[in-house]
């Protein structure tokens, strides 16, 4: 032990106060465990400070301004001016309210909060270095530890986030000025959400993506709806190209790209936003001192109780090798870890993990696609309802997209749902509950759905799967 270290003990040590860690800490404290939560940066983690929350705030602002400026058809004549630094400080207020809330909720539930960076000494203790120079450190012994250190943006060669014209998603979310020309590298969900936002705010946006479509991983007819809309917002896509380098030119920059065959292109821009994915944060944790096993990609290996290879040490959230890197997955895993420590019969056994992309329109998915279900050996039946046949969608003037529901043919059990369209992120909640409860198509179609709502489209898709839709023709 370093001289001057204070050494304390805790039943449960949580490292990282993102949606995985703070939820785990609160739940463990609710189970009357003695809990210490260490955070080196800001309460709420990536999600609240530079992920989910600020991105969704800017999406709201950009969409409102854009929509109001493009509603002549509805008789609305406006030419909104956006003060970006004002929009940004409104967004900061939202973030501050929520991160302040997290801190308060932790305290109210009796969680001990410690600011600093934790590193494992061995499999029963960490040293926490407090922020700033010479502020000392302390040693904490734990009975159980939950690692929730999250992830960081992947960097690509030649694009250093320290350079002003090179943006990570964090930089994009913190800007006070809309760039005239923005080059976005990567058309995954973060790239697409931010491209759409900046296009709506008036930037001239170009997206380069190594693969051959936007939103890899989503079905073609789902991503097509988002790509078409993005194109209609003026976004230029270049597929099959990887960003290779950049240099300054005049006031701006030039970004070079390369295809697999070595064909080169270059694009003028003011900023280049690199959004090519995120990698788990395990390298600043001395995790080898605890003997915790990692996968080849650097994630922490866990079982369905979120236990690592070392007894008493758990991992949850982006850093854990289980489920997609999403905030609600981390929170659920945090609850599982906390309740498992409290000796409850819990498991991370979700049948259906919903996910949303907050593009225009939104995407909401849960469970299996038809292809996935068939691969699993299910005989499937599928039903679909286009939003342009939905009364509610037409009255909101947003009627692109559709709901698709996938069920097991014989039993009618709902297996999955893909929604692209207005409020898709909210609509998916009903189907997630349905799948978790083992609902059949009939259960969904027998449930009265309020008129006029977008949720009726879920019911209609299920009716279509049964061959008896009312508002769309049955195939």
């Amino acid at each position, binding site marked *: 032990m370093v001289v001057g270290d204070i050494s304390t003990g805790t039943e449960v040590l949580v490292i990282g106060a993102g949606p995985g860690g703070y939820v785990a800490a609160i739940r463990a404290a609710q189970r009357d465990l003695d809990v210490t939560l260490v955070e080196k940066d800001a309460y709420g983690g990536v999600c609240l400070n530079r992920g989910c929350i600020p991105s969704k705030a800017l999406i709201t602002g950009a969409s409102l301004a854009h929509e109001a400026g493009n509603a002549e058809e509805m008789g609305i004549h406006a030419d909104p001016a956006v003060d970006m630094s004002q929009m940004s400080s409104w967004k900061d207020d939202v973030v501050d309210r929520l991160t302040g809330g997290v801190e308060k909720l932790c305290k109210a539930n009796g969680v001990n909060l410690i600011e600093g960076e934790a590193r494992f000494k061995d499999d029963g203790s960490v040293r926490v270095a407090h922020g700033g120079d010479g502020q000392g450190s302390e040693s904490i012994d734990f009975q159980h530890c939950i690692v929730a250190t999250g992830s960081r943006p992947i960097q690509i060669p030649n694009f250093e986030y320290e350079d002003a014209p090179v943006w990570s998603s964090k930089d994009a979310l913190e800007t006070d000025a809309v760039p005239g020309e923005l080059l976005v590298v990567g058309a995954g969900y973060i790239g697409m959400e931010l491209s759409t936002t900046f296009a709506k705010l008036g930037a001239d946006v170009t997206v380069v993506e190594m693969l051959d479509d936007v939103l890899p991983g989503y079905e073609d007819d789902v991503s097509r709806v988002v790509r078409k809309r993005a194109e209609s917002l003026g976004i230029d896509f270049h597929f099959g190209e990887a960003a290779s380098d950049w240099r300054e030119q005049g006031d701006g920059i030039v970004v070079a790209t390369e295809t697999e065959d070595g064909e080169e292109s270059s694009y003028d821009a003011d900023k280049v936003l690199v959004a090519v994915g995120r990698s788990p944060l395990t390298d600043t944790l001395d995790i080898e001192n605890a003997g915790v096993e990692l996968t080849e990609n650097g994630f922490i290996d866990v079982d369905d109780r979120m236990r690592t290879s070392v007894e008493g040490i758990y991992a949850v959230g982006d850093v854990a090798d289980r489920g997609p890197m999403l905030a609600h997955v981390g929170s659920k895993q945090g609850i599982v870890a906390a309740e498992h420590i409290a000796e409850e019969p819990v498991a991370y056994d979700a049948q259906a993990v919903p996910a949303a992309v907050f593009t225009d329109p939104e995407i909401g998915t849960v469970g299996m696609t038809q292809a996935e279900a068939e691969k699993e050996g299910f005989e499937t039946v599928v039903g679909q309802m286009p939003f342009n046949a939905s009364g509610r969608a037409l009255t909101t003037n947003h009627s692109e997209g559709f709901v698709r529901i996938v069920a097991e043919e014989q039993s*009618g059990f709902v297996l999955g749902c893909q929604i692209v369209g207005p409020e898709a992120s909210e609509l998916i909640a009903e189907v997630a509950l349905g799948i978790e*409860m083992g*609902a*059949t198509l*009939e*259960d969904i179609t*027998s*449930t009265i759905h309020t008129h006029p709502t977008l949720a009726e489209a879920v019911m209609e898709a299920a009716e279509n799967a049964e061959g008896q839709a009312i508002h769309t023709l049955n195939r």
Partner: protein
Amino acid sequence: APSETESPSGRVFAPPSVRRLARELGVDLASVSGSGPSGRVTEGDVRSAAEGADAGGDGES
């Protein structure tokens, strides 16, 4: 036999598909004891109640 956690006003907790099956098979849901969480009546409960009735049994299989 009715479940022990019988609800006020005879409310039976069962999914719509199970309620419809009960009507189809002529099973009185209120007389089925549910094997699901908190006594929720399942498809299996209704089917065995129907078989029990057919067999002249007491609905418990």
